[in-house]
C-alpha cells in the first residue's frame, strides 16, 4: 500500500529535477541565446566512412567522427588556431626536433581510465607498425618521427620509434629532422590516442559500439553500416560541462539530390548542395547555403619523365597550354560554387601563405591568350604542325565537363588537337603513378595547414610527384624551409619557379559547399581545414 505514494513522490521529485535541468540548459552559457530542447545534430555523409579507428581512418567523413570520439594532444579553435587538447602545452628545443608535451591530469577515457602519455606512445607506434597495415601510415612518415622509415618497413621494432612517455603526463617526441609546425600535426586524427586494453581484448572489433572506449566528447553508441551511426555525449570527458549537443546522428546518403530533398524535409540539420546548384540555392536560402575556401587544388600535370611526350619537354608549350586556359569559364560557368581561379599551386587560404603575384596571374585573359599563341608558335607548332596530345582524368561528370571545356579552349586559341580519355579511379591512379600518360588531372588536399603540404609534391624525392618534375632550386628551397621559423619567402620563390617552369597547370582552388539550418550555431566557418567538433555546436530555439 505504501508503494504508490512513494513512487508518486519520487516521480514528482524527478519531474522537478528534470524540468530544472532543462531550464538550466535553456540558455547558452556564453552568448545567452535560448537553446532548443532537442540538442540532436543530424547530418549526412555521401559515403560510408572507412573506420572510426584513429590509426586506420582514411576519409574526411570518418575523421570528422574520430575527432568527436577521440581527442589528440592539440585541438583547433573556430578559426583553426592551435588550442590545448589532452596536452595543456608543449616545449621544443632550438633545433625544433624534440617536442615535449605536458598532458592534463583530468583527461579520462569513457570507461574511467586516465588518459596517459603511454596511450599516445601506443597509438603512434601502432600507426607506424606494419602489422597494423594502416592506409594512413604515411602520416607517421611526414611527421618525421625518429626511425619511422625503419619501423614502417619492418626493419626495426615499433619500440624504436621516436616517441617516449617520460611519465604518465609527459610525452617526448624526437624527430629525424626539424619541423617548426609539428604541434599543428597533432590535431590530425591519426595521432589520436588508442586504448590498448580494448584493442588487445577485441582486436579489429574494438571500434564496434559496446566495445569502443574513447577519450573525446562523445562515444559511439550505434553504427549500422551504410545507414547511420550515432554518437552520444561522453560524461567522462574532461570538459563535458561545456558540451551542449547531446547526440550526433550521421546518416549515409549516397545521392546528393536525395540528400538535399531530405534536408528540405527537415530530416537533416546539415546537408549537401547538389553540384552546380550553389548559385540558385544561395539566392533561395541565403542564410543556409554556405561556401568556404578549402585547402585543395585542382591541376593538370605534364608527364616530364622520359616516357612523356617530346612536346612537353619544351617549357613554351607548357606555358602556352597554361595561359590559354580560361579559368573563369571553369569556376564561374561550370562549377559555380565559389571556387577560386588558380595561378599558383598552393591555395591562398593556406595559413601564412601570401599568393605571390606571378606574372601570368596578373595578365587579362586576352593577354594570356595572345601570349600563349606567341609561345606555341615560337615552339614550332602551328596550323601545319598542330600540337596534339591526350588528357586523362578519372571518371566523373565534373571532371568531364572541365576536360571538354579545356579541350575546346586549346582548340580555339592554340589549334591543338586534344583527345580526352577517362579511367576508373584505381586504374587512373595506376596509369598516372607509372607515368603512362601525357597530361593528367591532379588534385591535392592539404594534410595540415602549411604551404609545404602542397609544395613538397613538386620536389624530386616526393612519392606523389607523378609528373616527375625535378628542379634543384625547388628541392633546396623546400629542404631549407623545413628548419625555418618563417619560410614564406621560400614558398613564394618556389611558386615563382613553378610559374616559369609550369610543370603543372593550376586550374582552381576548391570551395566546399553545404547547407546548414539557421538554428545550428557554432559552426567554424573560418577554419579552412573545416575541422569541426560537435561539442562546439549548439542549436538555438526557433
Amino acid at each position, binding site marked *: 500500500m505504501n508503494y504508490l505514494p512513494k513512487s508518486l513522490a519520487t516521480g514528482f521529485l524527478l519531474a522537478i529535477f528534470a524540468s530544472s535541468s532543462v531550464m538550466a540548459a535553456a540558455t547558452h552559457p556564453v552568448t545567452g541565446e535560448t537553446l532548443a530542447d532537442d540538442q540532436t545534430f543530424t547530418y549526412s555523409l555521401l559515403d560510408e566512412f572507412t573506420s572510426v579507428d584513429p590509426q586506420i581512418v582514411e576519409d574526411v567523413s570518418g575523421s570528422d567522427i574520430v575527432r568527436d570520439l577521440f581527442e589528440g594532444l592539440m585541438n583547433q579553435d573556430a578559426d583553426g588556431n592551435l588550442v590545448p587538447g589532452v596536452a595543456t602545452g608543449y616545449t621544443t628545443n632550438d633545433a625544433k626536433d624534440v617536442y615535449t608535451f605536458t598532458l592534463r591530469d583530468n583527461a579520462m577515457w569513457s570507461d574511467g581510465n586516465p588518459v596517459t602519455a603511454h596511450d599516445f606512445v601506443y597509438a603512434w607506434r601502432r600507426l607506424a607498425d606494419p602489422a597494423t597495415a594502416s*592506409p594512413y601510415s604515411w602520416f607517421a612518415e611526414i611527421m618525421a618521427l625518429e626511425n619511422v622509415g625503419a619501423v*614502417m*618497413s619492418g626493419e626495426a621494432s615499433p619500440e624504436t620509434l621516436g616517441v617516449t612517455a617520460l611519465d604518465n603526463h609527459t610525452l617526448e617526441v624526437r624527430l629525424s629532422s626539424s619541423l617548426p609546425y609539428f604541434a599543428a600535426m597533432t590535431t590530425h586524427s591519426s595521432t589520436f590516442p588508442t586504448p590498448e586494453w580494448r584493442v588487445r581484448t577485441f582486436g579489429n572489433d574494438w571500434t564496434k559500439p559496446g566495445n569502443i572506449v574513447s577519450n573525446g566528447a562523445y562515444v559511439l553508441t550505434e553504427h549500422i553500416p551504410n545507414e547511420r551511426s550515432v554518437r552520444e555525449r561522453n560524461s567522462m570527458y574532461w570538459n563535458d560541462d561545456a558540451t551542449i549537443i547531446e547526440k550526433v546522428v550521421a546518416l549515409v546518403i549516397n545521392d546528393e539530390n536525395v540528400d538535399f*530533398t*531530405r534536408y528540405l524535409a527537415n530530416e537533416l540539420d546539415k546537408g549537401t548542395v547538389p553540384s552546380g546548384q550553389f548559385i540558385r540555392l544561395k539566392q533561395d536560402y541565403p542564410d543556409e547555403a554556405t561556401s568556404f575556401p578549402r585547402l585543395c587544388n585542382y591541376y593538370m600535370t605534364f608527364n616530364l619523365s622520359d616516357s612523356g611526350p617530346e612536346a612537353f619537354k619544351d617549357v613554351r608549350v607548357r606555358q602556352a597550354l597554361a595561359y590559354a586556359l580560361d579559368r573563369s569559364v571553369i569556376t564561374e560557368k561550370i562549377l559555380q560554387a565559389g571556387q577560386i581561379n588558380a595561378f599558383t599551386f598552393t591555395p591562398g587560404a593556406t595559413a601564412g601563405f601570401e599568393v605571390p603575384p606571378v606574372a601570368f596571374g596578373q595578365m587579362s585573359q586576352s593577354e594570356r591568350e595572345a601570349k600563349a599563341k606567341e609561345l606555341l608558335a615560337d615552339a614550332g607548332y602551328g596550323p601545319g604542325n598542330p600540337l596534339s596530345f591526350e588528357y586523362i582524368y578519372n571518371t566523373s561528370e565534373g571532371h568531364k565537363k572541365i576536360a571538354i571545356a579545356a579541350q575546346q579552349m586549346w582548340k580555339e586559341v592554340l589549334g591543338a588537337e586534344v583527345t580526352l580519355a577517362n579511367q576508373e*579511379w*584505381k586504374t587512373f591512379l595506376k596509369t598516372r603513378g607509372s607515368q603512362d600518360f601525357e597530361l593528367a588531372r591532379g588534385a591535392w588536399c592539404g594534410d595540415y595547414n602549411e604551404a609545404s603540404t602542397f609544395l613538397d609534391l613538386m620536389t624530386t624525392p616526393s*612519392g606523389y610527384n607523378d609528373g616527375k618534375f625535378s628542379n634543384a632550386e625547388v628541392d633546396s628551397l623546400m629542404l631549407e624551409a623545413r628548419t625555418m621559423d618563417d619560410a614564406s619567402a621560400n614558398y613564394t620563390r618556389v611558386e615563382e619557379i613553378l610559374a616559369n617552369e609550369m610543370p603543372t597547370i593550376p586550374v582552381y582552388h576548391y570551395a566546399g559547399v553545404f547547407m546548414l539550418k539557421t538554428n545550428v550555431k557554432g559552426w567554424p566557418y573560418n577554419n579552412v581545414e573545416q575541422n569541426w567538433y560537435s561539442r562546439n555546436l549548439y542549436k538555438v530555439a526557433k
Partner: protein
Amino acid sequence: MINYIIKRIGVAIPTLLILIAVTFYLMHAAPGGPFTSERPLPPQVLANIEAKYGLDQPIWRQMINYLWGILTEFDFGPSYKYHDRTVNEIISHGFPITLKYGFWSFIVAIGVGIPLGAIAAIRKNTWIDYLAVGVSIGAQVLPNFVMAPLLIIVFTLWLDWLPGGGWNGGEWQYLVMPVIALSTSYMASIARITRSSMLEVLNTNYIRTAKSKGLPTKVIFFRHVLKPSLLPVISYLGPAFVGLITGSVLIDIYFSTGGMGYFFVNAAFNRDYSVMMGITIVVGALTILFSLIADLLYAWIDPKIRY
C-alpha cells in the same frame, strides 16, 4: 525427378567453381589493388601489408587458400577496406535487408502484375485493357533512378508521410518506397507477359469447347485459363526473383537501405577483393538455386514436361 535434381546439383558445383575462378582472375587483372591510393605507400610498406593479407602469393594459391577458408571454416575473409568488418559480417548484414525489400517487391510485382495482365486480357480492347497496358508501359519506361527521387519528393517532402530513407530494422514505413521503386518495372513486365499469354490461351480450341459446353466463366478462368497462361510468367519469375533478392545498387543508393547491392559495386571500385568474391559466390549460388526451382515449378505446372 530426384535423379534430375542430383544431376543439376552435380552441374552446379563446377559451374560455381568456374565462376569463382573467372571472377578471381578478372578481379586481379584490373589495375590497382585494395591498397592503391592517391598517396602511394612506400614499396616496402606496401609489401608488408600485402604479405599480411597474403596478396603477395601467386593468384592460384590465393584462390585455393580462399576456397579452403570457405570450405573448412565458412570464412569469406576480411574486408580490405573496412578493417573492423569481415565479409561474413557484411553479407549477413546486407543480405537480409536486400532479401526483405526484394521479397516484398516480388510479392507486389506478382500481386499487381498478374491481375493487371489478366484483367487486360479478359477485357481485351476495352478502356480497362488500354488503361492496364498504359500503366504497365508507363511503369516499364520509368526507370527506378527517376522514380526513387520522385517518390522521396512526393512522400517525404510534400506529404510528409514517409521517412526519406534509412532502414531502421525494416519497419514498414522504411520499406514502402524501396518496394514501389523496385517492383514497378517487374510488375509491368509480368503484366505484359500475363496479358499476351492469356490472350493466346483464350483463343485455344479447348477454351472454346469449355465455353460451348456452358461452363461458368469463373470455372473456365481458374481451372483452364490461369494455369497454362502462367507458364511464360514462371520462366520469367525465376531470374527476376534472383535479380530482386540479390540487390539493387540504385535502391541502396537512393534510400540508404544498407543492402548488399551497394557493397557489391563499391567493393569493385575499392578492389575489396574478398567482399567482391563473397558476394559473387552468394549471388552465383542463389542464381543456380532459383533457376533450378523455376525449372521444377515449370514441370509441376506443365504436364508435358517431365524430367
